[in-house]
């Protein structure tokens, strides 16, 4: 099962691996190796050499993020490591798979990351609705504590790590790393201005690394088997494997760990079974709600960061949302913008006031009350909500499906306006 490090050991019944089962599959070997034979910098170097990029959506090189943590003698000695388990990007369900199926894998990844940046306190920031992951993580944490894999003097190495599981109280924006920090500090989940970045000033002003669950789950395997091995798993420039997914009217919605760079068509046809009978593909969002639509002409693209970016979209979370020909594209975009408008934290005007306005125009168009110049207005608003115009990336994310829908499904929008009805209704 060397080709599927993240999911190869998952039990068929999807129950969580116990500590014993995880260790039998090679679990915690990496942590033992690191604590006995590697320096913190060695671990960071291995992760940098591996080419691992963040799996939460932004794709930032993980080793580089860790290397920004000040480690000199003048730096604050208190540092934090946080696993971002606030998975709420619409269409995304890959972290749930990892949390429920192999919580020890995450704990080991967190311990290694904490060791690398010399953090002695770590948090899992887990969304409240994920009740099964909460139970399984708590149990795995207790097992790890009993076995001396967490807590004081881990495995007799002198390295100590207190690990806490924090469950949230809702809101999508808490998945944004600086809003997450504010939520953890007991405040409203409003993002922070960057710089300073969390690696320098994060939780309670201390150096903090926030990484996605899938990102951290890769770390034990990289430390255990090496950077070259990790690179060899990929079919393209990016390294490792990726948990891809598909939802919508495909024959077999699901999630599958595959080599990074697997083409879209292969994921859709071989793993998701193609479209349901009687349905044709019209487009897809490759990596969650905040990515641009791709269409038929893009299906042979490798699902890696650079290829999808060159096509005008983003890999994001890598879980695809598929639009079929019996579903109204205007309705789909209205649903997406309703989500983004609702989840605005309310801090900055373009987002707080712009998104509900966009939603209201789309609602009118969908219901046959659209006006001729509505499309021009939506285009202008999408351009206004660009990176750098808003306090965080939330509204720019909302602009992505909107601007790409106006590009690829313009005739559908025009029909709604001209015919004063939704051609898909009734």
């Amino acid at each position: 099962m060397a080709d599927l490090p993240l999911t190869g050991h998952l039990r068929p019944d999807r129950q969580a691996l116990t500590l014993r089962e995880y260790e039998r599959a090679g679990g915690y070997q990496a942590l033992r190796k690191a604590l006995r034979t590697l320096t913190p910098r060695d671990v960071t170097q291995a992760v940098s050499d591996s080419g691992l990029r963040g799996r939460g959506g932004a794709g930032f090189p993980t080793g580089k993020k860790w290397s920004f943590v000040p480690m000199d003698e003048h730096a604050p000695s208190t540092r934090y490591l946080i696993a971002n388990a606030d998975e709420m990007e619409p269409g995304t369900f890959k972290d749930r798979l990892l949390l429920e199926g192999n919580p020890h894998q995450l704990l080991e990844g967190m311990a290694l990351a904490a060791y690398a940046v010399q953090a002695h306190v770590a948090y899992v920031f887990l969304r409240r609705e994920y009740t099964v992951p909460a139970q399984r993580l708590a149990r795995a944490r207790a097992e790890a504590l009993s076995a001396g894999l967490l807590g004081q003097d881990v495995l007799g190495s002198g390295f100590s790590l207190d690990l806490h599981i924090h469950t949230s109280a809702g809101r999508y924006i808490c998945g944004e790393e600086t809003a997450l920090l504010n939520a953890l500090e007991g405040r409203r989940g409003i993002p922070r201005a960057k710089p300073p970045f969390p690696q320098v000033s994060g939780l309670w002003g201390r150096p903090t690394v926030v990484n996605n669950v899938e990102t951290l789950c890769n770390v034990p395997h990289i430390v255990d088997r090496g950077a070259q091995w990790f690179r060899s798993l990929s079919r393209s420039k990016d390294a490792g494997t990726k948990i891809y997914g598909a939802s919508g009217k495909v024959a077999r919605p699901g999630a599958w760990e595959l080599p990074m760079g697997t083409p879209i068509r292969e994921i859709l046809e071989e793993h998701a079974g193609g479209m349901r009978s009687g349905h044709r593909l019209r487009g897809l969002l490759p990596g969650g709600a905040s990515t641009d639509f791709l269409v038929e002409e893009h299906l042979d693209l490798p699902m890696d960061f650079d290829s999808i970016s060159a096509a005008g979209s983003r890999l994001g979370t890598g879980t695809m949302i598929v639009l079929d020909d019996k579903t109204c594209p205007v309705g789909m975009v209205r649903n997406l913008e309703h989500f983004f408008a609702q989840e605005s934290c309310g801090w900055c005007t373009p987002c707080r006031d712009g998104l509900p306005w966009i939603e209201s125009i789309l609602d009118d168009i969908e219901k046959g009350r659209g006006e001729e110049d509505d499309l021009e207005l939506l285009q202008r608003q999408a351009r206004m909500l660009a990176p750098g115009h808003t306090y965080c990336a939330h509204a720019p994310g909302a602009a992505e499906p909107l601007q790409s829908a106006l590009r690829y499904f313009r005739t559908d929008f025009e029909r709604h306006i001209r015919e004063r009805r939704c051609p898909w209704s009734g």
Partner: protein
Amino acid sequence: MLTAEERREIEEELPHYRDRQSLTIEALKIVQRHRGWISDEALADVASFLEVSAEDLEGVATFYNLLFRRPVGRHVVLVCDSVSCWIMGCDGLRDRLVREHGMRFGATDEQGRFTLLPVPCLGACDRAPALQIDDDLHGNVDGGSLGALLEPYR
């Protein structure tokens, strides 16, 4: 007044965080678990216990959609209304819950049994449409079998 049990549970969380103020969300969740919702009085009691202002605490309580500042029924039904569940028919599900099972969208039913609320993506998109009742996730929900699904929740 916070009960001794509530105070104890909140205090137990303190070592995990840097200060009392960081406990606001935890404390509100604990009180909500005991009482179902967070009244003005409960809010003031928590604020006083954590040594924060009630105004700041209200700001926190009203930011997070899973903290309830109004009474809820014995069970809270969260219907995912994000894009994958929308494609797979969550609107129809919600309509049936209202029309056929006496629920009120955004409110509590007459018997005080169910409160029906929308929720963003539950992370069960391969089992859409999905909904969560209290702590239980239900995927691949079939509109015709809602009665059986709701039955155990008295």
